[in-house]
């Protein structure tokens, strides 16, 4: 509740108030109203409203902040939240909304949500973020199985929305001839679609779409959909599943202007229909529960390489091709990664060969950043390093290895890099707390052919245990 003065200063992680400093009245209160609104626009509405009590000048400021961020906390009574939202909407008088965020984790009737969304649409909202669970949000890790919230039809005729984010138990079923003429950024996370064509209908109505993120929780049936957007620059696809059976999907992508691509989750069929000539960055993070890979592992490796082949124009590549998924695989990279300048790779004992194959086809690589996925099994790893010289990029200048545990294959690899990379000038090895820096350093400095111009640093990673 509203407490009166306390004497000690509270902890402030970012900025500290010097207790002895003279209180300078010529401070942030010096800023014009417009900049104070801007500061308040970064706060959840609950906090912005609390500033009403600071002083006479501050009393009405929150009512003119051009954003509303309404979140219910699960521990608050749901009735309280509805009352608060209606009061805020009645008192808040900013004529247009830059942003409207509604996060509803407690059970709520859909007509309240309709009303609140209408209020936002009426104020020409530009950024709309909705996270709704009509029957209450399930505990972490579980699928939402309650009723889905059907978006009000007035939303599909909104001309002002530039950013739209939908998460949770929301049912998306756009009418066939709708348009979002201003929409640039669209984020859909784990929502329900009316039909297989819903996504295509939605994005066909977005003539200026630049950034699309679709994360799906897979279902029992096969999912087939297309993403065809010639203006798209950024794409993130994610397939997650909590079910015991592996999902199946077919995804066709037509995005010739793509600059940034990110994939996370379980990999099935993804086909790029146009060459990604403008691709700058690609991040691929593949993971799947063990049961699935046991059944499908014969095809998994091929799928990984097929996806990577489509991304071979990237300058920055970040890759975790999975752990057990890569044990059996078909062909190595048949295409060159001419433009790759920076490679981030997450290694496990099962995917070193993927890394090595990639290094052979990346002749312009400048920075190699390895991170080990900690594996307590300490599996044996068979690694075949190239015998011939000149297989490694002659431009490699920086090499980082996070998670070096002095295992045999790791030592072999580091030795190989330190010897073959002629242009190498910085190497940073991060070791777990249990190893000694001096010991590791000694091992490294005994490698033959060590360049005298390369700076080697050994650091301890104290963040684990």
């Amino acid at each position, binding site marked *: 509740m509203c407490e009166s003065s306390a004497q000690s200063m*509270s902890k402030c992680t970012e900025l500290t108030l010097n207790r002895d400093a003279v209180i300078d009245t010529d401070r942030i209160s010096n800023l014009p109203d417009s900049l104070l609104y*801007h500061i308040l626009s970064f706060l959840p509405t609950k906090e912005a409203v609390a500033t009403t009590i600071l002083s006479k000048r501050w009393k009405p400021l929150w009512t003119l902040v051009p954003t509303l961020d309404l979140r219910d906390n699960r521990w608050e009574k749901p009735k309280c939240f509805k009352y608060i939202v209606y009061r805020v909407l009645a008192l808040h008088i900013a004529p247009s909304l830059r942003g409207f965020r509604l996060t509803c984790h407690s059970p709520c009737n859909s007509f309240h949500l309709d009303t609140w969304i209408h209020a936002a649409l009426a104020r020409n909202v530009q950024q709309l973020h909705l996270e709704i669970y009509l029957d209450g949000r399930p505990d972490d890790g579980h699928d939402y199985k309650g009723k889905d919230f059907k978006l009000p039809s007035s939303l599909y005729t909104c001309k002002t929305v530039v950013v739209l984010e939908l998460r949770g138990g929301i049912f998306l079923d756009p009418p066939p001839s709708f348009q979002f003429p201003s929409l640039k950024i669209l984020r859909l996370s784990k929502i329900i679609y009316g039909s297989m064509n819903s996504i295509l209908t939605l994005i066909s109505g977005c003539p200026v779409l630049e950034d699309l993120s679709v994360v799906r929780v897979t279902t029992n049936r096969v999912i087939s959909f297309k993403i065809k957007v010639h203006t798209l620059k950024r794409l993130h696809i994610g397939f997650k599943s909590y079910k015991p059976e592996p999902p199946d999907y077919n995804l066709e992508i037509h995005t010739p202007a793509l600059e940034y691509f990110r994939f996370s989750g379980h990999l099935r069929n993804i086909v790029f229909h146009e060459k990604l000539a403008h691709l700058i960055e690609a991040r691929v993070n593949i993971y799947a529960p063990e049961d699935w890979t046991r059944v499908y592992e014969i095809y998994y490796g091929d799928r990984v390489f097929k996806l990577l082949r489509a991304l071979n124009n990237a300058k920055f590549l970040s890759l975790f091709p999975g752990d057990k998924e890569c044990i059996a695989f078909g062909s190595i990279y048949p295409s060159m990664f001419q433009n790759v300048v920076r490679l981030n790779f997450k290694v496990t004992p099962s995917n070193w060969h993927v890394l090595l194959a990639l290094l052979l086809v990346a002749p312009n690589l400048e920075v190699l950043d390895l991170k080990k996925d900690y594996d307590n099994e300490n599996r044996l790893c068979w690694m075949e390093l190239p015998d011939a010289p000149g297989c490694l990029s002659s431009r490699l200048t920086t090499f980082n290895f996070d998670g070096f545990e002095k295992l045999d294959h790791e030592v072999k690899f580091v030795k190989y890099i330190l010897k073959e990379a002629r242009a190498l000038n910085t190497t940073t090895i991060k070791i777990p707390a249990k190893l000694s820096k001096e010991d590791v350093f000694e091992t490294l400095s005994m490698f033959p052919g060590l360049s005298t111009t390369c700076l080697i640093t050994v650091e301890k990673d104290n963040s684990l245990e």
Partner: protein
Amino acid sequence: MKFCTVKQYFDDENNNNVTNGIATTVIPLPNKHLKIKANNKEMEQYEQELLRNVMPQELTKLILAANYLNFKEALDFFCRTVANAIQNKSVDYVRKFFGLESDFEPGEEEKLCKEFAWSFEGVDED
């Protein structure tokens, strides 16, 4: 690209809005931003480090400078930092932070406290 107003500043000699000290903080920001744009975690760390060296009073000037230079990312960044600094803090803490004093009539403040009681819940211990 973002600096059409910077040239104007250097041409305008009587400009008191942006002191040299502030310019050295604000101007290198875009390059760093571009480099670590992809990685949000690194960005947070960078922001925290940068602001550990900046006194709260300076923030006012930084905000004004970023606003004058029309540098949206820097303006958002500094404003967000102020917002983070006052989030979940008690009324007295925020008053001290902003250098404000209550100028309400007696009883007016209590009335507001009751009316918006829900917004004062869940505050950090001072």
